């Protein structure tokens, strides 16, 4: 391909672009909408809100989710809140300021026009969610409450206790379930997308597997929306849910959709450290704890195994306060994570694994009393105690960074459509709004913006302006996509049996989980918080070796030949995709010889701080699948900053 990508950004001043799009867009007559089917894959914030909104307009919507209920989607786990430029606090907030903060927070690697639209519709999201019955926190006067989050100087974050994601998702889910009852949405639970079907160059359907019966199904539509979330589970250990996976976007990528900035991943600084080799996930401790907790490690290596309470004040290194006096413990996520890695690399990590730093509330408790701290953070302290069996009111918490979010995703234009006509990508699954680093409380905002307020317009415009021939599921493209899927399933099951045979005969063969865990270790070690040219090359070599091992067999027991629920078969299919995507992430990180946001190349730094290279790297890497996962083709979308001029982020 290698031609410049057209993001289809409307002309005009930044504040007028979205209005202009809506004024110029093509419409579908209300009576004709019911003749069009839209497939939505995923039921998180973006998927549920898009399904409900499109069905309300009259489209026939088919929603697919991998769980037993759409309400299980991982949006549910978001804790902190959702940003909106309401300026309810009268503290100088505005759409422009939210736009500015988000572009800057993303370290100047996002698309200005998309971010401005996000800031514009943020205010509508709050009105919409309140109308849907979301029980946001309120003041005694009955008005909505706000708090502040990292990377901003205003209070614009709306929240529902520590369960904002849950409440927003339930709001969108309920609106979708009303449409299920009204006949506008057909719900397909326990279904996993295994292929995208393209007819005449347009996305016209999907192939899914019924996870309970193993049956393969074909579904046809006039447009396909992927709202399937991020790919943080490439790292095996992350704060993401067990079933979160990249298969839908990866299969679309293999059918031609470009993958934008795959190496941009967010590592959250405050998670409960790994406690053993069998751990399956990491748990986040909210960013808000850094308001009162102080981060430190011992100055001397020999103190690291001591009881922290016995380490004298002068022997403690409050390294964030020391290095970043202006922001102290509240530096952004990428900076705090890297600093934690640096002190543990120096051998000053604490805890049994030596991979942790202290988050200490001793001084805060002394200052305001235990009851105030309990009131503010009680539920987080309880979670911590439950998991670690330690009392954080008495002993400092041990925390360590963990993979949390992926800013990269399928490339989309201003319409949130990929380079495949008719394939739209929403929420964390696309790449567009967060650049190289996402600010706190912005993921929920983007998911709902895309689903409630962007896709319903852009999908309509696409359907109204595209000539489409009727397609049925017996079209040759569907037949061949289903046949490809069946062959792939057969191959995976054969590899599973082969591995079991090998092991039975005393040969070396690992289980699919063992292979997956190794992929996670490679990714974390070399494509995690710090990346070097040598390390990335090592990672690519080791991932290729792992792919070869996978392709030579692994242990997988298949009762009923995959015709019944077999969760490890699902894992095997996902792991095959994770291995290929992991290699692309390493290739992208190798290609981007600059540091920006969450992407830190050791070769590009100023005294330990990330050094961006705007002359050579102010572009979106949009990777094209070539047929060989090791040889992707790079396309570029040049980023133009007309309003927010790139400067160096400094927190000193």
């Amino acid at each position, binding site marked *: 391909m290698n031609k410049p990508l057209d993001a289809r950004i409307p002309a005009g001043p930044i504040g007028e672009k979205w209005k202009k799009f809506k004024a110029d867009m093509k419409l579908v007559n209300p009576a004709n909408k019911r003749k069009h089917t839209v497939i939505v894959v995923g039921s998180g914030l973006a998927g549920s809100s898009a399904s409900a909104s499109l069905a309300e307009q009259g489209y026939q919507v088919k929603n697919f989710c991998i769980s037993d209920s759409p309400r299980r989607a991982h949006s549910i786990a978001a804790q902190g809140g959702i940003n909106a430029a309401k300026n309810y606090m009268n503290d100088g907030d505005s759409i422009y300021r939210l736009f500015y903060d988000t572009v800057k927070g993303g370290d100047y690697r996002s698309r200005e026009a998309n971010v401005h639209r996000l800031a514009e519709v943020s205010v509508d999201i709050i009105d919409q969610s309140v109308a849907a019955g979301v029980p946001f926190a309120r003041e005694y006067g*009955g008005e909505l409450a706000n708090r502040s989050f990292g990377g901003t100087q205003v209070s614009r974050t709306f929240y529902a206790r520590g369960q904002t994601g849950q409440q927003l998702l339930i709001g969108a889910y309920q609106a979708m379930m009303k449409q299920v009852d009204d006949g506008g949405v057909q719900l397909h639970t326990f279904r996993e997308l295994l292929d995208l079907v393209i007819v005449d160059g347009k996305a016209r359907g999907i192939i899914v597997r019924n996870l309970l019966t193993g049956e393969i199904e074909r579904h046809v539509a006039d447009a396909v929306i992927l709202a399937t979330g991020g790919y943080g589970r490439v790292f095996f250990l992350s704060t993401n849910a067990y079933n979160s996976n990249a298969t839908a976007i990866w299969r679309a990528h293999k059918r031609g959709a470009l993958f934008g900035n795959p190496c941009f991943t967010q590592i959250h600084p405050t998670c409960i450290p790994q406690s053993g080799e069998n751990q399956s996930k990491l748990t986040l401790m909210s960013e808000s704890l850094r308001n009162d907790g102080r981060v430190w490690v011992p100055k001397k290596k020999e103190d690291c195994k001591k009881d922290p309470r016995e380490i004298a004040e002068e022997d403690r290194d409050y390294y964030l306060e020391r290095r970043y006096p202006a922001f102290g413990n509240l530096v952004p996520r990428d900076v705090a994570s890297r600093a934690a890695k640096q002190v543990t690399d120096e051998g000053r990590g604490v805890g049994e694994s030596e991979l942790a730093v202290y988050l200490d509330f001793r001084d805060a408790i002394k200052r305001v009393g235990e009851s105030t701290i309990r009131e503010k953070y009680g539920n987080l302290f309880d979670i911590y105690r439950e998991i670690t069996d330690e009392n954080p009111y008495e002993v400092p918490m041990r925390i360590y960074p963990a993979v949390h979010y992926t800013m990269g995703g399928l490339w989309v234009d201003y319409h949130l459509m990929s380079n495949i006509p008719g394939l739209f990508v929403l929420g964390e699954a696309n790449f567009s709004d967060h650049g190289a680093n996402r600010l706190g409380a912005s993921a929920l905002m983007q998911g709902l913006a895309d689903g409630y307020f962007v896709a319903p317009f852009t999908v309509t415009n696409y359907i109204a302006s595209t000539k489409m021939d009727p397609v049925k599921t017996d079209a040759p493209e569907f037949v061949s996509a289903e046949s490809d899927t069946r062959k792939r399933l057969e191959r995976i099951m054969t590899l599973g049996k082969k591995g079991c045979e090998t092991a039975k005969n005393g040969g070396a063969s690992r289980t699919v989980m063992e292979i997956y865990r190794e992929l996670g270790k490679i990714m974390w070690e070399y494509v995690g918080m710090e990346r070097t040219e040598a390390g990335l090359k090592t990672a690519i070599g080791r991932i290729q070796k792992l792919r070869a091992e996978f392709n030579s067999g692994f242990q997988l027991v298949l009762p009923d030949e995959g015709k019944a629920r077999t969760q490890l078969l699902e894992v095997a299919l996902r792991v095959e995709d994770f291995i290929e995507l992991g290699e692309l992430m390493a290739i992208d990180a190798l290609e981007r010889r600059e540091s920006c946001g969450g992407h830190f190349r050791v070769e590009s730094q100023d005294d330990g701080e990330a050094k961006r290279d705007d002359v050579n790297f102010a572009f979106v890497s949009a990777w094209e699948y070539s047929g060989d996962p090791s040889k992707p083709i790079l396309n570029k979308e040049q980023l133009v900053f007309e309003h927010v001029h790139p400067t160096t982020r400094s927190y000193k």
Partner: protein
Amino acid sequence: MSNHAKSTKTSSKNMTVKLKVWRQKDAKTEGKFENYSLDGVSASMSFLEMMDLLNEDLTKKGIAPVEFQSDCREGICGTCSCFINGQAHGPERGAATCQVYMRKFAEGETIVIEPWRAAAFPIIRDLVIDRSPFDRIIAAGGYTGAKTGPHADANSILVPKPDADKAMDAAACIGCGACVAACPNSSASLFTSAKITHLAMLPQGHPLRERRVLRMVEQMDKEGFGHCTNIGECQSACPKEIKIDFIAQMRREYLAAVVNQRPESKSGGSG
């Protein structure tokens, strides 16, 4: 440099547990308990990580792994669902199955693991159950009915803080079904009443208030759940500690709706 090499140093004392796990091919086939012994379990492992380890062990022995449900593994998605030693979600109060840690169990202890048992939640396989009745109860009326589009400014309708707080207490439900599983009558009253209370507390929920309670209760009965007889097992088992008071609220809402019931006009505009 090598972070992961270091993490292998983690040395928790290993223990052996005896597991008695319900195995069932599908809804039509009779199930039975199978006994397994599992080594290498550490106290810091979560209960579900122990189940992962069991499945690795079974795989290596050529035995089909135990099918169970889980997702977020931090107590918010509501996917996990096991009886552990006869208790829905196990011994920990106010916690889901995924928040139970192996330090709660003793070396050599026998742990009995079963799926939720309720006629309305058929067993799909092993510990996996069908909770789609909950989705259908929500579809019957668990929404405000507001469509996507421009709405009045969010602060144009004030909501007293105590009402908003009570709405949030009720809305905290994660839809796991432990209330049904723990109830001797397999009643879904706690689940249904939590949604009815959540939306009844907010002005945005008022236009459909009566229709909502009538339709949701009707759907609950249609799904084959039992009636509530005020036993209270549901609130003890609830991982979010949702209170049985909401069931009383649901009854008041129901009664008021029956008394006030207004016919929906046949000439459009209803709902």
